[in-house]
């Protein structure tokens, strides 16, 4: 038991040391490098915590915004996952479907979706639905590309095995292709999750109307010179992204424990191979 704890401590010590260094540098910048009258550029960490998270009204404002952004991100991600997987399955069934649709999926990836935000607001209003749509547009491609790659990369010998037993399309899809593609699908989902978080927060930043999420707060705080609140909001947004990414990493490892490469491959942060 103590040995496990020692090992954990040894594993956590280096990143903890880095965090301590960063905090030290932050205080140094805040109190030594910057004059007192310009300290709003870099308020000290404890000031950020005191103002942002210690004051109940401020905290409520931040948490309400976080909740809204999280709802947008999760809804967008779920829609993107369902739609993306469905598209990938369709494309995996016939080359002509892939040839017809894939170029548009790629185009979607190259279109600066955030530049479309005013247009989306114009068409669908500045509320929840157009925010979710922004998320979906940003998060769709990784899930489509990774799922399709997974569905297509099944070992040909396994396909032969299914052909030999006269398996139909659906059986092949359910019993062979989808399970074999699961690691790739989860990789896509993880990248999409990151994208959905960015879509929710940055999209909100651009919408500038409607109920405020974290993005809008990040937009207005600097204009009101509320720098502690700005730092608190940025911190929440970052933590939200990191936690989502980390959760999907755990999910991927749990769901694909049979996949031997999961044990050996270094964690590439979910980048597609």
């Amino acid at each position, binding site marked *: 038991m103590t040995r496990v704890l020692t090992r954990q401590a040894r594993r956590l010590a280096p990143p903890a040391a880095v965090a301590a260094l960063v905090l030290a540098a932050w205080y140094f910048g805040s109190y030594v490098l910057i004059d007192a009258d310009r300290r709003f550029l870099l308020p000290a960490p404890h000031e950020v915590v005191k103002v942002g998270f210690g004051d109940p009204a401020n905290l409520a404002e931040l948490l309400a915004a976080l909740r809204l952004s999280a709802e947008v991100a999760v809804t967008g991600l779920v829609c993107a996952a369902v739609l993306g997987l469905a598209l990938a399955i369709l494309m995996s069934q016939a080359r002509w479907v892939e040839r017809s649709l894939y170029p548009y999926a790629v185009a979607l990836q190259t279109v600066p979706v955030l530049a479309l935000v005013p247009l989306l607001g114009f068409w669908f209003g500045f509320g929840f639905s157009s925010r979710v749509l922004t998320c979906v547009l940003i998060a769709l491609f990784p899930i489509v590309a990774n799922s399709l790659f997974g569905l297509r990369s099944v070992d040909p010998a396994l396909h032969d095995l299914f052909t030999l037993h006269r398996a139909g399309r659906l059986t092949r899809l359910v019993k062979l292709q989808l399970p074999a593609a699961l690691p790739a699908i989860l990789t896509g989902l993880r990248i999409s999750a990151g994208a959905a978080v960015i879509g929710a927060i940055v999209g909100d930043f651009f919408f500038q109307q409607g109920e405020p999420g974290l993005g809008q707060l990040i937009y207005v705080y600097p204009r009101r010179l509320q720098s502690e609140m700005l730092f608190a909001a940025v911190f929440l947004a970052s933590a939200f992204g990191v936690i989502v990414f980390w959760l999907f990493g755990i999910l991927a490892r749990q769901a694909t424990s*049979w996949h*031997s490469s999961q044990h050996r491959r270094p964690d590439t942060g979910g980048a597609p191979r």
Partner: protein
Amino acid sequence: MTDDGRPALTMEAVGVRYPGGTVALDGVTLSLAPGEFTAVVGPSGCGKSTLLRLAAGLLKPTAGTVGRATERLGFVFQDSTLLPWRSVRRNVELAGELTGVPARERRDRAGEALRRVGLSHVADALPGTLSGGMRMRVSLARTLTGRPDLMLFDEPFGSVDEITRGRLGDDLQELFAADGFAGLLVTHSVAEAVYLSQRVLVMADRPGRLVGEVAVPLPYPRRPEVRFSPAFTELTSQVTALLQGGTADRIEVAA
């Protein structure tokens, strides 16, 4: 068993030309009697896998005809082709699952097949935790659940070590003796071909074709010691001579 005495497998002047233009097989004619175990040897790339894919109906010939007397065929691939997310037992059940065998019977057959290959104790393990030889046995067990009349083996022991390979060969012999399926075994080991089969077909490449055959009249069951007998040595040297472009005539050897 196919009872009517028709050949389990026939090929008549079969040719295969792949889209790229490669002539993988040219003018191949062969016939496999029910319950006959035949081996095929040849240099790599001479069309051995193509021959087996034809026999299994995974590929259509571009010339000639392929006939099979039975639909109950088993195919043992070079790799074990197990689904890594399924337990050993559920992998063995897969064949019956795909062909619509009722769940109960599927389970019984899988249990029996696993017992026959000596792997009942790892039925709940995932394939990734087994050795290469064990995975090959699971693959063999999966094939056995279909009660095949014709078994096709594509270099089935190519990826396991020498000792395991010998053991798998002996297991195969036992299964063959008990079930009496017809077998077509592709291998690149001359000794293995002679040891396991009643007849060795020799292939050459460019284009892939049969260049001769050697009958192996050694009685079953064959024990590993038979490999050191003069008759065995004589047979392997005949096959080797054919492989090296020696006489293409049919050679008979008395036991």
